[in-house]
């Protein structure tokens, strides 16, 4: 499972980071960083929640 972020859509609301801080990190520079783009199976549920919760629809999951 791969996580992708469309940075044209991301506006650094950091909602994803509130849900899965081990995968998504908004740093003090205001930008989102992916800490891993292939999270483990045990994190799929949290990442999927972050995908849906992003108000900009900027995150997607690929098998």
């Amino acid at each position: 499972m791969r996580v992708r972020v469309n940075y044209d859509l991301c506006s650094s609301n950091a909602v994803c980071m509130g849900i899965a801080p081990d995968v998504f990190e908004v740093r003090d520079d205001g930008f989102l960083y992916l800490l891993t783009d292939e999270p483990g199976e045990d994190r799929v549920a949290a990442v999927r929640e972050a995908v849906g919760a992003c108000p900009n629809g900027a995150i997607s999951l690929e098998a």
Partner: protein
Amino acid sequence: MSLSADDHVVVVGAGLAGWTFCEELRRREYRGALTLVGEEEHEPYDRPPLSKQVAEGKWELERTSLVTPERRAATEVTWRLAERAVELNVSGPFVELNSGERLHATRVVVATGVRARQLPWRTPETMTLRRRDDAERLSRALHSLRPSDEVVIVGAGFIGAELATALVRRGLHVRVLEAAPIPLAAQLGPDIARAIAAKASTAGVNLRTGVEIVGISSEGGYSDVLLSDGSEYHARLVVAGVGAEPALEWIAGSGLATAQGILVNEHFEARARIGALGDVARFPWRGEPTRLEHWQIAHDSARTLAAWWVNGEALAPLVPYFWSDQYGQKVQVLGRPHPEARVHVVRGGLDEDRFVGLYERGGLVSAVVGLNQPRALMLSRPLLVEETSMEEAFRLAPWEG
């Protein structure tokens, strides 16, 4: 009590909440019948961009659609768009449409949202911004403006402030008229609200507060907005952002609705077999019935009810969240800010370009507000997931991480 293939779920309201609920039911492999009723002719779309990217002219309206070909294929529903529900019978249960047709269901979800409050004066130049059709009308009106024309926005709440910011970015002259001495003070308390309103002028927005409109009249394609102090504004366009109210007249006979919305349990059920989502739901947040018109509540309430109905799974209680892009600033709030709560600024300062503040209520952290501090704000989310005392919050200081 879990849904089975013999069920028929009727969802009334095709906004973010209703559509997300349908998507979640199918994602959780609900195989029964599913009907989505929407009053507007449009497929579900996202509202936040209407007062931001769309108003600024950066996005076409089509881009707000929530229904991509992939999402449509994954979510089989019987679409009943451009049809209005006029009655909910909870014992049937059934939903009656304006055509007289009855949709018999085994479960019904009410997600009809809110409608924009109107000004008492209606002229050809006055409008509100809530729906896609409103945004289209606004867009057409903006294209007909001359460079010297002024736009008057009534109300400096979230919609008013965002719209003003977007229109100034288009190079338009914008005047915002607000009745309260401090805009948003009723939502965020005076200190935080004052700090945010102070950014209006730096964003080029002419904001006048504490004013009373006594009349709006129209002549020759312009509206004259008259204030109680005698001042008058000559506007080619007047947009009212004066709040919204639940659109619940259609369920008046069901016994479920009050002026405050529909009371639901932690799963967003109003009764067995009847759910209510998003803007209309009064859900328990820290023991208090709470109704919030936030994007995230619409989304999370849909997930919560779908998990409960399909799998009997109780999701973790949601933490209220909203954001607003106004006056060039990113305002974010977690939890429920009470206007009378004491606010502790823990990062930055209220006269600076960034800050984080904790709202204290009953000795607990009841909300966290951030201005241009998304990282510190979201790091503070655990303070609201579990009840956290102020003392503990200061000891943990997650915003420093």
